[in-house]
């Protein structure tokens, strides 16, 4: 059995996280994740001259959740907003010297929190709308946020999603997502992956019903 261990860098940021707290009158703010899935992050932003002048976060979650919140806010601080948008979870993981595969989803959440806070800023202050049509390509992008904890890779890149169909307006069952995912019976994360798929899809208002089938190839 693989021993799950954090790097010294992760422990350092867990013990003494940077940028913790809530900013007063933030220009952008967002909360992503949920206590139900075990982790939740809030990100607060102050923007001046298109640069992230100040940033902070709150975390309900494990050590990697706290450490990734700390490192992502460190990375974003002082960056032009346009550059901050391009930060990826890989940047965060690299900066931490790696994360155990089972914890990679925490870094995805932290980056997601940053992006959502930036979107909040853009829609409030710049009037930019981020609404995207909900279709299959949108859902595939959402599912890229679901990391298989054993592989440390999202389920789309890991080619685990074998079939996806979304029924839109005018279809027989509008709002129905049908998805087939390949997971072995011996996969200890089977349950977790399915739960994460449900959580991500259920958060989309246009999704009314999810029919997720596990297939073994």
């Amino acid at each position, binding site marked *: 059995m693989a021993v799950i261990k954090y790097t010294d860098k992760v422990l350092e940021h867990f013990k003494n996280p940077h940028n913790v707290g809530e900013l007063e009158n933030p220009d952008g703010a967002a909360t992503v994740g949920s206590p139900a899935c*075990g982790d939740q992050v809030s990100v607060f932003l102050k923007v001046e001259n298109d640069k992230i002048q100040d940033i902070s976060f709150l975390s309900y*979650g494990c050590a990697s959740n706290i450490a990734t919140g700390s490192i992502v806010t460190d990375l974003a601080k002082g960056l032009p907003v346009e550059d901050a948008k391009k930060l990826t979870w890989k940047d965060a993981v690299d900066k931490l010297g790696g994360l155990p595969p089972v914890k990679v989803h925490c870094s995805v959440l932290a980056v997601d929190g940053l992006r959502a806070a930036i979107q909040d800023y853009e829609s409030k202050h710049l009037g930019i709308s981020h609404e995207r049509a909900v279709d299959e390509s949108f859902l595939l992008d959402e599912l890229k946020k679901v990391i298989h904890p054993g592989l440390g890779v999202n389920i789309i890149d890991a080619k685990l999603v074998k079939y996806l169909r979304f029924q839109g307006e005018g279809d027989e069952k509008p709002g129905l997502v049908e998805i087939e995912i390949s997971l072995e019976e011996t996969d200890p*994360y089977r349950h977790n992956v399915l739960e994460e798929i449900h959580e991500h899809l259920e958060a989309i208002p246009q999704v009314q019903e999810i029919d997720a089938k596990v297939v073994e190839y």
Partner: protein
Amino acid sequence: MIYMDHYRTTPVSPEVKRAMEPFWSEQFYLPVSFTRMGTDTAEVLDNAKARVLTSLGLSQGEVIFTGGGTAANNLVIHGLMRDADLSQSSLVSTQIDHPSITTPLEFYRKKGAKVSLLKVDGEGLLDPDRLKENLSPQTRLVALTWVNHTIGSVQDISSLVKMIREVDDKIPVLLDATMAVNSMDIDMRDLGVDYLTLSAHKIYGPKGMGAIVAPRKGGLKPTLFGAVSESVYWPGGENIPGIVGLSVALEQAQQRTDKYSNHTLTIREALMKALEREIPDIVLNGPRGEKRVSDNVNYSFRFIEGESVMMFLDFENIVVATGSACASSDLKVNYILSAIGRDHEMAHGSLRITPGWSNSLDEVEPLVETLKPIVERLRAQSTIKK
């Protein structure tokens, strides 16, 4: 270091270690018939079996040594079900039983058996009437656990078994006594169960050793096959040091259950009192008082996640366990805490603190004093506010 994770595992006691010592390199032979070395070992094996039976109040019966408590539960379940017509079989246990019981049962559910994992109340206790309603002429097994391994609830086994016997004397009853051996005086003549299982490493014995104890021989079908040795149920070379270790650990535990209960109860009560006094917004998981085993404390700390708490305590050399999904190997939310009605947040924020022989009352204050600022700090940085 303050070690309060005895429900995970215990250190091997010096007496057990001493008893095992000769069987590693000196008297290492297997119980081979017609040889002096072999018959000496056979005698050691017989003595170990007798020690197990006597410790549990039996003068005769069957002892099957296995590779742990999980293997013991599996061997009973598969041994009863091997040749059963699954479409005519009903298996009964509870929602909060150990995975070594619930997972094999789920396996038979998929294969077509009727499996009832019964609801327990908010304290983790099974209502005898609920059990009664779920018994039928097709019941092939009732599997019960005496002391829950997460929340320390103690089932009223004698009433439950008495009720089962009133309904049908033939229903096989499996009792997992793993977490009860340290603190409960066990007399299998009174218990009335068909199979009792236990694990050595929870009672200051070696890891990888378990046993099934049955007052009557037979009943189980073999499910592992190979060169038949001491037991038809566990073929292959006998783990003599392990068998000796388990038997001595069991004997020792049963000789001092009163002392153990008093010792751990004093610590449990002091710990619960101090935690409830010092840290707000905590919720006890499992019962209070006599329905709770003496050596288990489990609280949910609201608004925070348990892996973080566990790690901060670990930095301060304090070892406890958490029910958080983040810290579990499969990221699943703790099913026992869910079964007693705790939501995900409460389950993630739970700590299981299990004192044992190595602890003293003096450790309660430093533990609580260390824990308090950790909880305060994590709450201050949490997204969830009161």
